[in-house]
Every structure is written in structure tokens, then in C-alpha cells.
């Protein structure tokens, strides 16, 4: 079909701002800002207004980054704000660091661990834990210094909690 405009594709070497809504989407499969914000609300109850003043960017297929404020799009730089969310897969997955930063606002799918369970979690270990809620990605937290503090994202399946804490972030505490 030579008369058809070629479809725009994702360029893994640069950051592109997410389209606002599906109507604005030019690159196939790219998440929209609306979908990203709704996902955090639906999955974790993080209020959409939490993300006012932030922009969202894709670099690499499905890797979403969050930036306070704006820059021009597209932009070729090494990093833009914080890695935030992995899309373009059946179950979207937030990053450990995004959950530590924005999981404070979560009111749904929050799993609270004891101190000993938290130690296992930050060592990167899978553990058997009872949880009546949804399977899938959870905000995993523990009580620290007077309030719940998110440790990161956990994956709950088959009555066990898996720890996706990246190697470099794991600690023996």
C-alpha cells in the first residue's frame, strides 16, 4: 500500500511524551497519560490529582518515565525523571522506586508486612503470606517511624509474595 502513510513506531533511543488520550495516539501500542493515571487509581487508589504537574514519557518499548514539569518532545537524553511503569504487557508493572515515591498515596492493594517479612522482602526472597485481596502487583509496605512506608512493588500469586526488588536495591537489614 504505497499511498498509505507509514505508521509511526516507537524509537527506543529517545523519550516521547505520552499522548493525552487514545484520540491523540500516533504510535501504536503506546499508553496514554489518561490510561496511566487511571491505572494507578484503579489498582492502588492513588488519586489522579497526585500526578498534576507531572509529564509521562516512553523510552524503550513500554518503559514509562515520570518527570516533574515538561521538556520538549521528543528528547534524546540519558534519563528523564524517574522510571515509573512497564506497559505493553498484559499486566502493567510499576517500578520499585515509583512505588516508594508514590505508593504513599495508595489505599488499595496495599500489603502490610511485619518487620521480619519486610527483611525477607528487601533481600529479594519469595515468602508464603496470607492475602485475601487481588493477585498481581501490590504496594508492599511496613510500619516505620509512625506511619506506613512503601518498600516497593510485590507480586502476589499462588499464596506467595514474590519480591521484584532489583539486585542493586536489595539489602541485608
Amino acid at each position, binding site marked *: 500500500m504505497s499511498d498509505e502513510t507509514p505508521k509511526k513506531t516507537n524509537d527506543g533511543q529517545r523519550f516521547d511524551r505520552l499522548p493525552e488520550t487514545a484520540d491523540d495516539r500516533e504510535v501504536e501500542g503506546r499508553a496514554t497519560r489518561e490510561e496511566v493515571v487511571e491505572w494507578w487509581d484503579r489498582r492502588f487508589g492513588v488519586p489522579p490529582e497526585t500526578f498534576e504537574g507531572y509529564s509521562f514519557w516512553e523510552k524503550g518499548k513500554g518503559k514509562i518515565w515520570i518527570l516533574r514539569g515538561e521538556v520538549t518532545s521528543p528528547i534524546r*537524553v540519558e534519563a*528523564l525523571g524517574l522510571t515509573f511503569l512497564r506497559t505493553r504487557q498484559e499486566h502493567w508493572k510499576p517500578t520499585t522506586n515509583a512505588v516508594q515515591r508514590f505508593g504513599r498515596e495508595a489505599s488499595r492493594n496495599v500489603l502490610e508486612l511485619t518487620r521480619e517479612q519486610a527483611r525477607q522482602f528487601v533481600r529479594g526472597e519469595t515468602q508464603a503470606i496470607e492475602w485475601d485481596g487481588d493477585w498481581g502487583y501490590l504496594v508492599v509496605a511496613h510500619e516505620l517511624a509512625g506511619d506506613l512506608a512503601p518498600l516497593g512493588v510485590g507480586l502476589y500469586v499462588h499464596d506467595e509474595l514474590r519480591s521484584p526488588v532489583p539486585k542493586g536495591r536489595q539489602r541485608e537489614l
Partner: protein
Amino acid sequence: METLERYEPLVAEFDAFREACRRPLPSVVRVNTVKATPDRAKRALDEEGVGWTDREWSDTVLELDTDSPGSTWASFHGWINGQEEVSAIPAEVLAPEPGERVWDACAAPGSKTTQLAALMDDEGLVVANDNNLGRLSALRFNTERLGITNTVVTNQDARNFSLKPFDFREFDRTLVDVPCSCEGTVRKNPTTLDDWSLDHIRSVAGVQKGILRRAIQATKPGGTVVYSTCTFAPEENEAVLDHALSEEDCRLVEFDFPLDSRPGVTEWDGEEYDESVRKAKRFYPHHNDTGGFFCAKLEVGE
């Protein structure tokens, strides 16, 4: 350690200076206010039985009674970050405001970048640049762990840094914390002086001059540039300022800092520098029980 003998003409109480350089450094961290208040970070340390002592001059700088601040819950959560006390000086002197555009010209491994972001309440833009891709990964790790969202990371030679990726032409403020001979870090790393040579100092001073000049050019008229090193060598400090004063439209400005310091020197090794370099501050290890540091504040010409 003999290397430091060359500074005897500059340092009164030279024996105290030499003794201090032999002692290990206290373990100091900065509270990352993007993720926690100082009170909450202290409470987390209390719960773990890690002792802390406030620093009079700052709400966010704490001395800990552990050698491994990284092995604490407060660190895992990104509430604290290991940062030597004097290393916290230049970002405070630059004093960026929320919403401004700030360039951190030699940013890795990012303790000052993340401090700038925190001083800005994580609003506005910090452009964190470093020419060393390997060190950039350490910077990235730190901005991520501390939950910083207002920082863009670039990989350029700061001497001819290009603003092309951006839709603005100048920064409000720039931090020039240059690579240096690191003499002042001898308390942390006693082998740091093993590779010392005057040739290295001369060559790194050339790089420092190039970076400072580009920083002045890339900062708006009336904007602030802070120049800092962790070395005592006037060749890398006052001489670099003297060069920038003669080549670029800028001036040194006075600043207060609540740690004991000495003014910049105007004479060294047969060279004379512009009188205004006295406005820079030299921080010696024996004065505040810290590493050695040098910091100057410049204003770009209108």
C-alpha cells in the same frame, strides 16, 4: 601525606591540619526531604538503634554512629543518603529555588544533584550532566533511590555543553563541582594522594577552566554559578577563578556560610590572583572535623 607539606605556607596551625588529615572521617548523611522529613528520618534511625547527631548549620545533615549508613531502613527507603559534610556546602550556596532551571555540570555520582532537587522541592528542572557514562549509572541509581523526578540526565563534555535538547537557552543557576585532584578526601581515602603529581594538577586545571567558562556562558545574566572542588591546590581553585574573571563577564560575590573557613588566597607559587578571589572560602579538615573543600560564588554579568 608529604604531598600536603606544600600547603604549609597557606595553613596556620599546620600540625593540626596534618593530624586531622590522618584521622578517619565521621559518617555523615543528608536527609532526603523529597521522601521524608528530618524528624521522620531521625525516628527511623532511633527505631533501629542508630545514633545520630544534628549539625548546627543544617536541618538535614546528620552524623551517624554507624560506618554503614547504607545498611539501614532509612537508606533503603531513600530517606537518607551518605554525603560528606563539606560536600553539602555548594548546593546550599547555590540555593536554587523551586521552579528554576539548574545545571549540574559534573553531576555523578549525584549526591549534590539530589540535594539540589530537594532544595527545589523537586520542582523545576535539574540538568545533571556527566561525561563519564559509567559514573552516570551511579547517578541514575541515586536519583531513582531518592525518588527525584525533576532531573534530566545528559552525557556530554561540559566544556562544550550543548543546550540543543532543550527549549531554553540558559540556566538560572549552575553548579560547577569539577573533577579535581581530590586532596581534601584523604581522610576518606588515604591512598588518594598516591597518584599525586603536579602534571596531573596542571592538566585537570585546564579542564576545570574550560568547564567553568562554559558554565558562565550557559547561565543567564545576573544568574549564579557556584564553583567547588575537594582539593587544596590553588592551581585548581583560585587560579581557575582568576582565569574565568579575566575571560568571561562575571564577578565573585561574598557569601556567608556557618562553618569555619578561610578566604581564598591571592598569591601562590610566584603567581598572583585577582584580589576578589578572597571572597571564595577554603574549608580545612581541622576546623570543622570534615574533609577539605573549596567553594566560590560567582554572579554572571548583566
